[in-house]
């Protein structure tokens, strides 16, 4: 026993020494080249994220890249190579999304709190800088001396800069206010040559556009007079800002009134008297989004009704499609039926049409006054298929049945055809009736293979957003609810409309994420319990 283990051990050791993790074979060189390409791409990705200041992305990319190199070159971890790409994509596309949803659920991210705090401050300052009323546009020359930038304008009168008369050229920099310069040349109202300064052309301006955009030239020594700035490099205007940001105290100050705005815990600058500056930023709000969903009377009532309908909708959809699919599969499995291949092909048709398209077509066909169903099939009856609460629910289930039965038909056909003939034959010899055969043999065996699919179908229908959105948009609305939610809304379509993602209300990504997590927990729990139950089915084997 011991000797055998030892032999195996040495063999392994020998194999490891020649492992293709480091063996200089042809394969290794190919691998090396591929890894070099991936590393090169990764390093550029790192540079790009570094430059755009996206540190989270930078760190994630770095970890993935280091891990990839370690896995593919270290001997011990080499077997991981089979799952690493999948794992990396899982991390990026699944776990990250889930993690991000959880993060957003605890913030007030949405309309009014759409940006980060530095961006909000920047936007507020942009908005607060106003053109001084009654001042004109100056054709401007952007001038450069060494690294220093300046603006030169032609004075329109004495107010442009101290001591100027109309036609004089005034020049100033960020430090020095506008003052008259002598010996400048002017053409078409614009300074074209200023002694000691180089006049920049548009291309040169654009190449330094960050500096030009930031350049404020004071009109005079008194900051109250404002400053001139050129937003587009060709014209300058006198601007004055009404807000100032004080970094030391983290406050905004209204320069006209002296009002001080402090950041509040809702992510807005707020003054003592409660007035707030318009641009807010995202902040963490704890469990507030979750408590809103359950305690705010406007949401709580409809939430339970929607939950009840969602569960019924998902359950009934699976039940009806499965029963119809099973029935048809059994019928078309009968060898005596002529032309069943053609029938089977026809059965698949609804499955071949994209779901969202089919739902749209159905919503047209079910229109009360002009729809095909009422006009042609029912001879002009005005049945409110999509606008009466119960009929709308029936229509949703009906359309979903039409869309869903081919899938069930397919899997049932497959399962039926794979049933062992000997068992069926033995039961026939024992004198079992067709019904008895179906009930005691076919059905239990069928459920073993289809039950997991039924569960996933339940989970799918639980979140069948496309159907609801395209068919009824959740309508008709609850007449007694104070949020735009309707009788056919399922949880996920409710999330979509109450959080304003459809553009009809103010967006609230925080609430949307919180509700999505609730949906996730419900679906996850139901699926977990159901999968546990299906193990019992396997015992019949």
């Amino acid at each position, binding site marked *: 026993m011991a000797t055998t283990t030892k032999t195996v051990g040495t063999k392994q050791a020998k194999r490891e020494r020649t492992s293709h993790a480091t063996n200089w074979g042809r394969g290794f060189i190919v691998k090396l080249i591929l890894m070099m390409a991936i590393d*090169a791409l990764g390093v550029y990705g790192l540079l790009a994220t570094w430059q755009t200041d996206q540190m989270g992305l930078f760190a994630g990319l770095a970890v993935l890249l280091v891990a990839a190199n370690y896995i593919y070159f270290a001997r011990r971890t080499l077997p991981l190579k089979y799952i690493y790409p999948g794992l990396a994509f899982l991390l990026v596309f699944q776990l990250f999304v889930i993690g991000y949803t959880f993060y957003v659920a605890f913030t007030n991210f949405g309309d009014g709190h*759409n940006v980060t705090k530095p961006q909000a401050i920047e936007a507020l300052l*942009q908005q607060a800088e106003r053109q001084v009323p009654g001042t004109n546009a100056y054709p401007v020359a952007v001038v450069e001396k060494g690294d220093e930038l300046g603006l030169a304008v032609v004075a329109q009168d004495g107010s442009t800069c101290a001591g100027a008369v109309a036609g004089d050229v005034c020049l100033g920099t960020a430090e020095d206010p506008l003052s008259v310069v002598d010996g400048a040349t002017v053409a078409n109202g614009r300074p074209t040559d200023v002694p000691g300064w180089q006049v920049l052309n548009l291309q040169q301006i654009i190449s330094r556009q960050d500096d030009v955009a930031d350049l404020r030239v004071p009109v005079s020594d008194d900051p109250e007079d404002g400053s001139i700035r050129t937003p*587009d490099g060709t014209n300058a205007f006198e601007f004055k800002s009404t807000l100032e940001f004080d970094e030391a105290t983290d406050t905004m100050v209204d320069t006209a009134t002296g009002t001080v705005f402090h950041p509040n815990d809702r992510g807005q600058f707020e003054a003592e008297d409660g007035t707030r500056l318009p641009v807010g930023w995202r902040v963490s709000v704890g469990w507030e989004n979750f408590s809103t969903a359950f305690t705010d009377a406007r949401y709580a009532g409809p939430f339970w009704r929607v939950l009840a309908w969602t569960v019924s909708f998902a359950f009934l959809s699976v039940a009806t499609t499965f029963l119809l699919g099973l029935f048809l599969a059994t019928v078309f499995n009968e060898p005596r039926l002529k032309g069943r291949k053609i029938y089977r092909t026809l059965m698949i048709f609804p499955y071949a049409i994209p779901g969202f398209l089919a739902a749209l077509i159905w919503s047209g066909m079910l229109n009360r*006054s002009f729809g095909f169903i009422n006009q042609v099939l029912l001879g002009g009856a005005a049945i409110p298929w999509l606008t009466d609460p119960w009929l709308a629910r029936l229509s949703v289930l009906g359309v979903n049945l039409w869309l869903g039965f081919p899938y069930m038909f397919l899997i049932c056909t497959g399962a039926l055809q794979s049933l062992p003939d000997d068992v069926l034959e033995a039961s026939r010899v024992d004198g079992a009736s067709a019904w008895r055969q179906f009930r005691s043999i076919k059905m239990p065996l069928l459920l073993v293979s289809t039950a997991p699919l039924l569960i996933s179908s339940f989970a799918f229908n639980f979140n069948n957003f496309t159907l609801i959105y395209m068919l009824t948009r959740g309508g008709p609305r609850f007449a007694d609810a104070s949020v735009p939610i309707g009788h056919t809304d399922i949880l996920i379509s409710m999330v979509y409309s109450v959080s304003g993602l459809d553009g009809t209300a103010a967006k609230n990504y925080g609430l949307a994420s919180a509700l999505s997590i609730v949906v996730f927990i419900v679906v996850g729990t139901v699926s977990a319990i159901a999968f546990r139950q299906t193990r019992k089915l396997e015992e019949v084997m």
Partner: protein
Amino acid sequence: MRRSIRLSIVTAAAASLVLTGCGGGDGDDTAATPTEDAAAGDGTTITMWVDETRLGPVQEAADGFTAETGIKVELIQKNFEDLGPDFVAQVPTGEGPDITVCTHDGIGGWIQNGVVAPLALGDLTDQFEDVAIQAFTHDGQVFGLPYAIENVGLIRNVDLAPEAPATWDDAVAAAAAAGVTDFPVLVQTGTGGDPFTYYPIQTSFGAPVFEQNADGSYTDTLGMGGDNGHAFAQWLHDKGAAGQLSTDLTYDLAVEKFASGEYPFIIGGPWMLDSFKDLNLSIDAIPSAGGQPAQPFVGVQGFCLSSQSQNTVAATNFITNYLSTEAVQTALFKAGNRPPAQRDAAAAAASDPIVAQWAAVGANGVPMPAIPAMAQVWTFWGDTQAAIISGTAADPAAAWDKMIADIQAAIG
């Protein structure tokens, strides 16, 4: 989702860096490092979002801009209705454009969301229609360069109705004379209502959505409650019961019916005209149903600058010196059928009587509110109208009051 998009952008950026053989270095990734002597504009690219209709004219303007300045303009085509939501979502991530096509009614929300920067237009404002500049003005700052003004009006089939109706009843009589039995005036409705199209009828009852300040700006106070609102609700109820209005009449159906040439009137906008090419049309003021003038919403479209643009000087230059010209504004008018916002272009376009008629109807309109609270109004408003018209809300006044209360609660 967001991250995966970013990742792919990073990958693409990485790939493009490899391809251009540029190692990157000085911290600004949008402008490649310019060397002292090179034509410096060469490295700068401004990005602009534009919808399909506007793509051609803007491309021409961009070509001219690139030829004169060396600054490249990358145009990204997006669906018109995606422009606003995507702009709000992507500007904070740094992946948004420098410039986008925008509508004035979204500006209030954009300001609050910190995604749009004011434009200093200076004397340029004099070249544009006052209503267009006012629509983009918030708190004294202009947030967009307008290019088109649009509003709904009464599109009349001259062959069926030679006279413009002054009141709803006139229109019903004229339609009856033309042999129409179901919809005297086609008003697109749908199961979710259509407050935008119905607005002129509502204002004819003296029930504006929000109250206005003396200078025309909107307050947060709802103006459509009270007796005037009830009268409008009752009217919707009555006309719905009489079959003149119907939630089954969607946009497509309404347009299709009018295009058949059997209906004399439809309430709609310039965007419909392509469907009515064979008909003799006139555009008139919308007939008053409640006795007061019927004022449609006026929407203004324009170009907006991102607050996170890294190319503000180049982008502003493109907007103020190229997109504002009469030639570009005229080209935009020809592409989109909406009356231009630039005065000279508007004057030239008004030689077409239909355009002049649209503008005349719009002159009596009111700007669509651009305040953030407006976003909370639409769903309740439309659903309630639909419920009253279809008869599911048996008591129109009560349904209207509940709508007011719900909107008030949503605005907070």
